[in-house]
């Protein structure tokens, strides 16, 4: 029995109960609506800066890019400029493709489709799900800028328009029923996060390597997405009051307006937990990818010397010592020597 995901699930359930009951039964709105978000944000910013500085503090003694294509050598051989970047510019392109399109992960997918046939059921979807997950998450975050700005920037409105794929309203004299615009990103996020979780549990080799720290963020993000969607389409949280709260946070005049359902505080608490958890977890891969020495360095080591800041002198076996040991034999064999 793999207890790792049970622990993670349990942790998220406890977080839910804490915030839900905390607000509903004990009335700790100030704690969950103001204090925790501030603390989480401080932890997030401070933590991320600390971690990145900590990585940056470590040296890069050698230039060790993984070369994934033909090197630049003779002028008539076509080099693979992206996968074996010779210049800093090409390295930036490689990094860009890596960060934006998950190029290395895509290699996996390309392998999974051979001769037009699907050969590895899980891997083909990994790249797609990973892309869907990260981009829908990004879209969701951008959409939420609406809650922290007044007036709402045009870009955010534009993204909302693109993102909302249909509007369903029944407006007659008798019945007035309608859904707010459905945002694709939220649903995609929920679907992608579910896939990634199911893959972790069902694909045997992935389950074998998974830790609680792998399930926890997935379940937490599922909780965030689910509570968000629930608020928007089902329980219809008082959006005006919610914005009053978030604007209060961002303008440093925090208030707790009346009429916000506990589910909002659950949502906010989940987000706070995610933010605070971020710097201490594998989620730091977001920043780490930029510092990965096998990807962010140009493959021109024979043309340009890389400096190792801690390069120290070492004990070597010199030619003189070598000749001293073997001089007679060398002379006998007709090999030239320094000292006859």
């Amino acid at each position, binding site marked *: 029995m793999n207890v790792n995901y049970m622990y993670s699930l349990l942790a998220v359930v406890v977080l839910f109960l804490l915030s839900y009951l905390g607000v509903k039964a004990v009335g700790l709105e100030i704690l969950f609506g103001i204090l925790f978000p501030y603390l989480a944000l401080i932890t997030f910013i401070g933590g991320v800066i600390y971690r990145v500085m900590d990585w940056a503090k470590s040296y890069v003694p050698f230039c060790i890019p993984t070369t994934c294509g033909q090197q630049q050598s003779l002028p008539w051989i076509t080099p693979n400029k992206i996968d074996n970047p010779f210049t800093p510019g090409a390295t930036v392109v490689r990094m860009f493709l890596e960060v934006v399109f*998950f190029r290395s*992960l895509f290699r996996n997918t390309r392998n999974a489709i051979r001769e037009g046939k699907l050969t590895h059921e899980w891997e083909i979807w990994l790249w797609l799900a990973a892309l869907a997950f990260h981009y829908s998450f990004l879209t969701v975050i951008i959409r939420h800028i609406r809650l922290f700005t007044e007036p709402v920037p045009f870009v955010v409105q534009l993204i909302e328009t693109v993102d909302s794929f249909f509007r369903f309203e029944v407006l007659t004299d008798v019945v007035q029923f309608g859904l707010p615009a459905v945002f694709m990103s939220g649903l995609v996020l929920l679907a992608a996060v579910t896939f990634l979780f199911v893959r972790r549990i069902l694909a045997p080799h992935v389950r074998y390597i998974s830790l609680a720290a792998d399930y926890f963020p997935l379940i937490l993000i599922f909780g965030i997405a689910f509570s968000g969607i629930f608020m928007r389409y089902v329980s219809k949280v008082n959006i005006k009051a919610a914005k009053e709260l978030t604007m209060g946070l961002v303008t440093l005049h925090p208030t707790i307006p009346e009429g916000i359902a506990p589910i909002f505080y659950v949502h906010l608490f989940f987000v706070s937990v995610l933010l605070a958890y971020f710097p201490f977890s594998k989620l730091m891969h977001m920043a780490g990818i930029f510092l990965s020495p096998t990807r962010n360095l140009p493959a021109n080591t024979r043309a340009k*010397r890389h400096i190792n800041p801690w390069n120290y002198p*070492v004990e070597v076996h010199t030619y003189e010592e070598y000749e001293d040991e073997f001089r007679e034999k060398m002379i006998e064999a007709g090999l030239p020597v320094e000292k006859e």
Partner: protein
Amino acid sequence: MSDLPKPNEFIDRIDRSIPRTGWMDTPIDIRKGMYCYAANPKSVEYVHLPNAHAWNPVEDDWHLPENWKEIIHEGFKTRLERFRSFKVFMDICVRCGACADKCHFFIGTGDPKNMPVLRAELLRSVYRNDYTTAGKILGKIAGARPLTMDVLKEWWYYFFQCTECRRCSVFCPYGIDTAEITIMGRELLNLLGLNIDWVATPVANCYRTGNHLGIQPHAYRDMLDFFVDDIEEITSVRCEPNYNQKGADILFITPSGDVFADPGTYTCMGYLMLFKFLKEKYGLSITWSTYASEGGNFGFFTSHETMKRLNSKMYAEAKRLGVKWILGGECGHMWRVINQYMDTMNGPADFLEVPVNPITGTRFENAKSTKMVHIMEFTADLIKHGKLDLDISRNDNLKITFHDSCNPARGMGLLDEPRYVIQNVARHFYDMPANTIREQTFCCGSGAGLNAGENMELRLAGGLPRSMAVKHVHDKYDVNTLATICAIDRAALPTLMDYYLPDVRVTGVTELVANALIMPGEGERTTNLRGEPLPGMEEEEE
């Protein structure tokens, strides 16, 4: 009678015996055929590496110093500070599983701990326990575990089941490179004197005599003289090389394995012939060195420091001899060291010139700082400019495929040069399937010092994916020759072929070049370098 299991029960029992436990709880079983013998303490002592002592992997007590945990802890910390690669790779893995089935050892052995991600987790689990807040508080839930003797043994067993081939790194979305992890793991083990003999003894030999086998200078010359005689028999041309010659144009360094063991010896004969050809026709003088007589660097499989110590001979000898630049022979990890480490460690090589091929005028801009050129770049350039006289029909009986060696492929990107050379010295060339070559090439299974005899089962398992790809072109195109540009490959692949595909032979690319090369003043050649009749010469032989 009733005590005996029924036959079916018996089978069930033996085949379902593996318990379903998490990897942290699966105890290590150091199995014969999978591990290499412990380092000879004399070898460790000779190069002054710490804690040289006699020990046996299968015994309980490894005779470690009392403060071994402290040594590892300190060593770990130092390396986290010195290597950003190590620190970042400890932190950012998301365990997506993309690397899991990319490792030839996982594919071949079926041992889940050979998945690259788990190999790294062996170190990460201890890292979390010792250096992260979450690990210290949450322990096992956060994937942390304390360093124990069992964990250390697991490190040793699995870091010597990795050939540092970097294949997993190609597929990792963050570029996490298991070679880096294994290098660090081995460095830590070396702090306790826990090397394998197949690495430690070559390191000591190389340090002292300049080559892995410990061959002394006069014997080294003897070996090359032996080839000169052989070549004369075949071509009636004497290809005497220069040794330790001051003022030569170029210093040539190649792995010593090719001087001592078949079929690398034929590649070595190829070098001698090529250099003789260039000397006769174009007056180019190339010298060999008995001091820097080893291209391969087993220090790379020990620690960064040991690598630097062994590598220092290359520049030192080039400086002493006053050559213009260095030419490097066919070798795998040697080229990773030269391409990505040498200049940084032992440079700048400001006493050398930017390599220019005096015959073609080509300036090797890509090697202008390190000043060392690969023999395939050099030969391809010569062929492109029509400077070699070739009779490619002499290789007509060969149906050739090319095995990209891991390090030139993923630590350099030398992919098209050898293919260009092969296709210009032979007519029949067939590449293996796309996901088994170039940057996705499968390892021979014997790199990074694992080419010992006692771990044969591991090597054959690790070489399984490569063999199956060769089998594919063997069945499809009748391929009978596996060409490669690595001395370890030339030592390891014949064994692999003997087991899986006995009618495929292994050759170095320069051997193919030499077979096709028309030497000035040569007699009628009836055999190739191996003494086998050339195509069309079968009858004359008899």
